[in-house]
């Protein structure tokens, strides 16, 4: 009888140990993240042109895209974002841990798909949003974050993650 106990006393912690080790070692950055709607955090930042930001810009359905001039993946998703911004969606940038000069240069060179870009050199707003790195994209409606994608935004992720959320939001508002 006691040999079973002896076995269990070692086995159960061992399973816990192995499980947590596995979780640590797996890359947990997943592409989609369904979430409870969360209020957009408060912030007092200017945009890249030093203009004040009207929070009402987030009333309509918007994408908040976290980008930086140093971010290679941002370059990859840039054409798709440009394509998106030409559709009905309101695309707002969150320039993350970047210098104003480099950011403006980058936009000048590649083209600016954003309605405006919030300038967040220390990552304050990004921290409150829970950003882990660039690029990331948040789906916002009525100043509430309703969806979140980490990594590159492309047609596939747009269809699989954001489109259902947008449809659900539209149905809810009817």
């Amino acid at each position, binding site marked *: 009888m*006691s040999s079973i106990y002896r*076995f269990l006393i070692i086995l159960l912690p061992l399973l816990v140990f192995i*499980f*947590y080790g596995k979780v640590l070692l797996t890359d947990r950055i997943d592409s989609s993240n369904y979430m409870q709607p969360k209020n957009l955090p408060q912030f007092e930042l200017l945009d890249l042109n030093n203009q004040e930001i009207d929070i009402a810009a987030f009333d309509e359905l918007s994408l908040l895209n976290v980008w930086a001039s140093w971010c290679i993946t941002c370059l990859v998703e840039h054409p798709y974002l440009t394509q998106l911004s030409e559709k009905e969606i309101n695309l707002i940038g969150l320039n993350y841990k970047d210098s104003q000069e480099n950011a403006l240069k980058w936009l000048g060179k590649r083209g600016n798909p954003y309605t405006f870009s919030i300038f967040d050199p220390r990552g*304050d707003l990004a921290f409150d949003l829970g950003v882990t790195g660039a690029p990331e994209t948040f789906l916002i409606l009525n100043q509430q974050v309703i969806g979140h994608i980490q990594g590159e935004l492309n047609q596939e992720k747009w269809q699989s993650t954001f489109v259902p959320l947008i449809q659900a939001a539209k149905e809810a508002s009817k």
Partner: protein
Amino acid sequence: MIGEIAHFLSIASVMILTLVLIINIIFSFSSGHSNQLILSYKLFNQACFLIFLSFGIYIYLAITDDFSISYIANHSNSQLPIFYKITSIWSAHEGSMFLWIVFLTLWSILFVNYLSFEHPLKKGTMLMLTLIILGFLLFLLVTSNPFERILPFGVIEGADINPVLQDPALAIHPPLLYLGYVGFVISFSFITAYLFSGNLSYPWEKDIKNWSFVAWIFLTIGITLGSWWAYYELGWGGYWFWDPVENVALMPWLAATAFMHSLFASSKSNVLKAWTLFLGILIFALSLFGAFIVRSGIIDSVHSFANDPQRGLYLLGFSGFITFISLGIFAYRLPSMQSSKLIVTGSKESFLSMNNILMLTAIFSIFLGVTYPLILESLNGEKVSIGSPYYNTIFSPLILLTSIFIMISVEALWQRGMQAKTLFFAVAPTFLLAALALYLIWYFVEIFSLLAYVGIYSGLLIIISYFLKAALTIKNNSYLNKGSFVAHIGLGLLFFSVSMNSILSYQKNINLFPGDQQFINESIEEFNFLDLQNIKASNHDIVLAKILILQNGNSIYLNPEKRKYFARGQITSETAIHATPLKDTYLTIGDQLENGSWTFSLQINYFVKWIWFSSALMVLGILMTIFKKKIR
């Protein structure tokens, strides 16, 4: 330069501790080595002192604003009062880990020197403690070095402490909590040394009893302070959120509570020995698990530090290593631990062992709650969050059963069964009185919630049974364990007040222009927004609302604030609380809407003060037990 000295001292300490281990491994093969033991103890003490010295210098660096040290530059500021310059040290990962190690060292040096030179377990305990200190010191220096410089030039001004941490309760909450957490390293190491020694007839309980009680007191105060801080600083009106980090603090607390009870049974009647030893190991293993959860960033929480897999792996590996040493030797010795004595049904021990099982169930349920989201995520990538509904549902039957066993055990005797007559005359009145009290509560509050009523009934069972017992002992002039009485009244009061709080408290959202007023309900006839002021303080701007509330005919002035801190641009909300013994009127100011009006959140929170008070009672009860004169 001074920073490098401190850095060097801690590295020197690593070397000396390594030396202690090497000496003892080499000489463990030879006999007659009292000189070697003296040398080990001296080296051990010196290594501990070097760590204290290093931390002392680190405090000096923080006070003198040495912003060339990256950690201090990122978490302190020259404008801070000296008190917060010091507390900024434990406001983030590296510094708080340093503090954690300093406390680990403090407990270790005190305990090792408390044991007499001839004590058979002194050497083993010291070696285990050396290993643990060494492991964590290496973790600090290799993965999270607090001494790292910003080279070649430091910054002129620090980035400031996080404003929500700029608060006296929170400044002392981590040190007390850590003192509690790491305090159980004593029982852990001592038990491991005891099991390795193989002499299982040695009465080990007496040597660590009071040490464990003191650690339990620190842990309890630490958890309560954290909860109190969350209540008045975060502005959500709650005091416990089942946040993963709260959970990993609650697990060692439950294990420690079970351990203390088991120690009595083990030392008084020599039963539950394996249980007691296992619980003693489990407490510190759970503390280590907590450190891993918080510091690896594996679970999102308000407390967690930055995600760093390297730290996580090291912590998991090392914690696993020392836990398995301890559990391994425990499993190995388990067959020889079987006591020839059986637990008498109906004796005090029998109820204690029941409650051990219940506590372990509670610990396992919390553990599952913390781990389940990760399991699900790793299975199919789905993210879930487990919150209070899960814990409330799991805990309410557990609490009821625990309370029933506590209630019966009040009348039970050590090593003797219980007579049906005692059971009937002592237990039946308690059941009935508690039911009557519950009915009266229902009659007056007219609110029903099954979970809350289970909690209230459990609390009442404990309180009433202890008061009946006290009344009887006064009448018969017999013995009453006063420490146990006070601590259990505290526990009963805790169940009672938490449950009452959950059914009575309510919240109102209010939206007003300055100068306007509003009717809220029968008890709050008027909510008057008198004025709004802008004030400049040393490191933040304040928006202060002046509110007059007419509550049950009394005028209450409340001034909630919103603060904007310059250094980080962070906005915090300062709650205004009007406290009466029964309820708190709790007001936070929200946002200003586009039309210029302001939002407020008004909460009426019942019995909150009672929750802190019941914690204090439990601590007082344990203090009384520690300082109790040895009557028998």
